[in-house]
């Protein structure tokens, strides 16, 4: 960000007298605003798409009244949420009750910072990108737990407890399933991971096809991430038919809206990580977008990235509208007896593979056979 600020100061003579830190700060705020707008738009559109997909799958139409073909439904929903009365239960812990939605929203929004949207489109290319995402999204647990506790509602409390147990247990398989990508790239930075999947192999350069173990990692991560973002079949913290609405049962208006937005934000983050770590990220197949002029290169790679990400989001919705929900003990069993051992075995497999074949994947080996 600072380098960008320096080049900006150099380019625009008007800014010559302004201290460098001010420019940097302003630039950061501007970037944050752009990402916020993007996140909110995605979350709005995501909710619309979710309902449309649900409609299609369930042999009905879905929202189609607001705007052409229901396109503006999410705006109507948003306006409704903002205008609704903000109710705080009489015996709630008011401070924590108000604080909880922000925790959840911040946790999901802050992860957008390291999402590699394009060749140069990344708010902060942290060298600990993946760890940052995992750390920041864990903030959601605190928010959910606070919400459940502060509501002074036993259903909400149960939802909060479930969420805490669930997210904490699934943190391990999520991390373990992502490590193969880190091993292959040799870096925790998401940009580096994406770049490692570029090259002349096209889609066979993706980590997904690198070796059998990475192939499995993709599905393991997908499953574990579904659980971490509380999507069906792992939507126990919400569990509409059991806990009514779980931790957010007492929330209304914009506070509920924040939970709602965070849910879609999480969905995007998971899909983005899937894309970045396994599906080649913003890499345009058989083409190096970095060679194009800055603006076109970035636009092209952004398009590729978003296409892949949205496809993954759609698949997540598809799963969501097909499967029933697990029970709490089954959820825990799934994490500790299935996903954790499998991800460890997988990690071992990837490490051995990399050691034995000196970092080469199957497509790479085949390619080198043919010169």
């Amino acid at each position, binding site marked *: 960000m600072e380098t960008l600020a320096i080049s900006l100061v150099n380019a625009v003579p008007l800014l010559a007298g302004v201290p460098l830190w001010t420019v940097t700060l302003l630039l950061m705020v501007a970037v944050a605003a752009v990402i916020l707008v993007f996140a909110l738009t995605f979350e709005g559109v995501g909710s619309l798409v979710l309902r449309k997909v649900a409609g299609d799958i369930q042999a009905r139409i879905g929202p189609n009244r607001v705007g052409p073909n229901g396109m503006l439904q999410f705006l109507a929903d948003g306006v409704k949420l903002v205008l609704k009365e903000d109710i705080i239960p009489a015996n709630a812990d008011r401070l924590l009750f108000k604080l909880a939605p922000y925790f959840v929203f911040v946790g999901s929004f802050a992860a957008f910072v390291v999402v590699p949207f394009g060749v140069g489109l990344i708010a902060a290319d942290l060298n600990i990108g993946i760890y940052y995402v995992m750390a920041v999204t864990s903030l959601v647990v605190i928010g959910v737990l606070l919400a459940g506790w502060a509501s002074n509602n036993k259903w909400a409390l149960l939802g909060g407890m479930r969420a805490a147990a669930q997210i904490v247990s699934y943190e391990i398989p999520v991390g373990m399933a992502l490590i193969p990508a880190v091993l292959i790239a040799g870096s925790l930075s998401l940009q580096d991971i994406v770049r490692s999947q570029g090259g002349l192999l096209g889609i066979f350069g993706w980590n997904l096809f690198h070796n059998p173990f990475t192939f499995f990692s993709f599905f393991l991560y997908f499953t574990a991430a579904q659980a971490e973002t509380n999507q069906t079949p792992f939507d126990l913290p919400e569990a509409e038919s059991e806990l009514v609405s779980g931790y957010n049962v007492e929330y209304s208006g914009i506070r509920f809206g924040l939970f709602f937005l965070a849910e879609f934000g999480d969905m995007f983050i998971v899909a983005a990580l899937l894309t970045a770590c396994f599906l080649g990220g913003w890499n345009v197949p058989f083409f190096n977008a970095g060679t194009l002029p800055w603006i076109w290169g970035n636009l092209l790679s952004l398009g590729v990235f978003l296409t892949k990400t949205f496809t993954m989001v759609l698949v997540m919705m598809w799963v969501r509208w097909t*499967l029933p929900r697990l029970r709490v003990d089954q959820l825990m069993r799934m994490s500790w007896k*299935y996903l954790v051992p499998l991800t460890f075995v997988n990690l071992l497999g990837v490490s051995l593979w990399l050691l034995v074949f000196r970092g080469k994947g199957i497509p790479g080996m085949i390619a080198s056979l043919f010169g």
Partner: protein
Amino acid sequence: MGLKAYLNDIVEAVVTTAKGMRITARYGVDPKEEVTLQYPEERWEIPKGYRGFLHNDIKTCTACNMCVKVCPIDCISLESVRGADKKMVLCSYDINIGRCMYCGLCVEVCPVNSLLHTSGYEMASVARGELILHFIAAEDAPGIKARVARQVAEAAVKAAAQAAAKAAEVPSSGTAEAAKVAEAAKAEAAKAAPKPEAQAAEAPAAAKAAEVPSSGTAEAAKAPVVEPTVAKEGEKKE
């Protein structure tokens, strides 16, 4: 749990999930599978014999009271007076459709098929009173009563006169029978007469208030009828 069972579990989970997802995907992509009826714009075909709002054709109704008796929840109320020709004349017929459960028992018992189900099913209202259908406007009831009373009185007077004339016609016969008939007719006329008079005394005031023309015959035709298309009213109100 052996390793085989463990792996079997995983495979089974994946296979059954895939099966389910194949079905949902088929519905997801096939637009023909959408079954939603876009209600206010599209409507389903209402079959014959649909049990919608009740409608009573008061011109055919004989005020036999069967529907009132059979209604399990007493949502029909009816008031009638005995007319000049000994038939009952309706002076009010109300159905509380807020209470009606559309069971159709009343329609089934109606001997002249004047009470029927329409195909109307839409009605929105903000007051419960609006849900009571008046097939004869409440303000017309006194007018109808007055008219019927007058007709009854007229008929009674006529009958008395006829009887008297009959009695006068056959004085020569002098039989006790004829005298008896004449006597009876007179007595009947006398019985009938005072009552209508008493009513007639009240009636003008009521009639005036309601501004019902006392032209008698025209009234029956004029008696306001609630249109069968109640649904339209509901739409207007929306």
